[in-house]
């Protein structure tokens, strides 16, 4: 149990560094889509909610878990939809491709 938490700390630290390096390179042009995309990815928390609701260990856990699934799923669906909509609008003025 203790060891798991330590491993988790390493994973967190490495992921935070990767996040900094990758996201630093995102053009300011795309900061709004960046925020909506990371928000959709963050909603991966839905897997925890699915297990919680699905295991049905207590009624409280099942109810809260289901609400959590609703909240996270709406972020996934809405987040990906709007990010794609925004990115489709960004067009270059360069020579038009046929």
């Amino acid at each position, binding site marked *: 149990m203790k060891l798991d938490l330590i491993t988790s700390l390493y994973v967190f630290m490495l*992921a935070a560094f990767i996040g900094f390096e990758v996201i630093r390179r*995102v053009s*300011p042009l795309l900061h709004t889509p960046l*925020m909506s995309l990371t928000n959709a990815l963050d909603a991966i928390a*839905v897997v925890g909610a699915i297990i919680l609701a699905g295991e049905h260990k207590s009624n409280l856990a099942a109810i809260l878990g289901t609400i959590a699934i609703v909240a996270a799923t709406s972020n996934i669906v809405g987040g990906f939809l709007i990010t794609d909509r925004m*990115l489709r609008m960004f067009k270059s003025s360069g020579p038009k491709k046929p």
Partner: protein
Amino acid sequence: MMPTETFIEITYFIATILFILSLKWLSSPTTARHGVWAGEIGMALAIGGTLLYRGIVDYKLVAIGLVLGCIIGVPLGKVAMTAVPQRTALSHAFGALCVTLVGTSEFYLRAPNISPFMMAVLSMEVILGSLTFTGSLMAAGKLQEILPQRPITYKGQNFVNLGMLGLAIAIAVILVLHPDKTTLFPAMIIIPLLFGVMLVIPIGGADMPTVISLLNSYAGLSAAAMGFVLNSKLLIIAGALDGSSGFILSVIMSKAMNRSFTNVLFGGFGQIQAAAAGTQEQRPVKSATAEEAAAILAAANKVVIVPGYGMAVAQAQHKVRELFDALTKRGVDVTFGIHPVAGRMPGHMNVLLAEADIPYDKLLDMDAINGDMAQTDVALVIGANDVTNPAARTDASSPIFGMPILDVDKARTVMVIKRSMAAGFAGIDNPLYYLDQTLMLFGDAKNFVGNIVRELSGGDGHH
């Protein structure tokens, strides 16, 4: 043959790779859409894998949750581009809600058999989650103008806020030492819920980009904390990526306002407002009509348009696009200068202008455009105020002194579309308006730009 657990772990592993690639591809507009696809595939894999988990006995609840989530999510994905800031704030609230509810359930399922370290991350999960939930709801309410946009300040505000945060942390410490005191747990949720509300009450509209970024970071960190609790590496990584993204954006936004985090959160702008109101002075300004503005723009070689929140409020971006077309057709070089905090969230102006079909290579950030300002014939400011205020460069007594600005005052002619001479958000007078080369164009941004376009096409005989 392969145990289900191993298979699920493999889907999570692939999802993690795809999530990192997703953000990497987002760095450039040419590959950005691949990033969305990678994210979608990773998400589908991870959810699909989770559904195979043998511990799941109640598929009905899961299905209800997923279907309801889709029903709510689709309209949230289709909101108008002008509503994107409040939609983003709302999605931070939803993410934080999910994390808080899962954390609460985990506590009641596990207590009192919780190790101190586990209780510490669980406390972090629910404290960050619940304050982000109400804070984001408040931000969304202010952006949607359901709640008053003006900052609300009162005496002892910082004391009250810090006191609440301290109390929540104190309860967390008690629970870490005595996880059997389950009656304390609800307080550890309710106090941060209140704190979230109080935190955003004093925030004004112009500070929204920083606050939304900060809430984004909190939402990510709370999800990462949830990953610690559930021992899910995928969730830790997704949370860390979201957390660092929000953090980077907060730093960029704070720098662009020359303010620190603490200054934004425990803000001083309320006081400045009161002080600045007394020092209004009447100085002459030069104004011009749409006809005159059109003639000057048509004669220019290089025009820089500086949009601000006023353009979004007036919904003027499509008229601005017509102006861009009309001038480009006459051979005028038109670019846009975008300040990092223009609008209500990071990148707000870029999205609105892209929606109006303005090519993204014409949208330049502050550093790129400022070098060109001295060679610019006309700088046209539409609904932006403080981000063009030269006092930030020259007047050490100005509250915004040191804030990086768009140097529109270096252009040969400056035109400012503005409703009236009323001061901007911070109540700070803008010396730009009184310069010799400045012309004020009084009126609604959308109408005025429309009138200029009409004058320009009238000259061509396109009536």
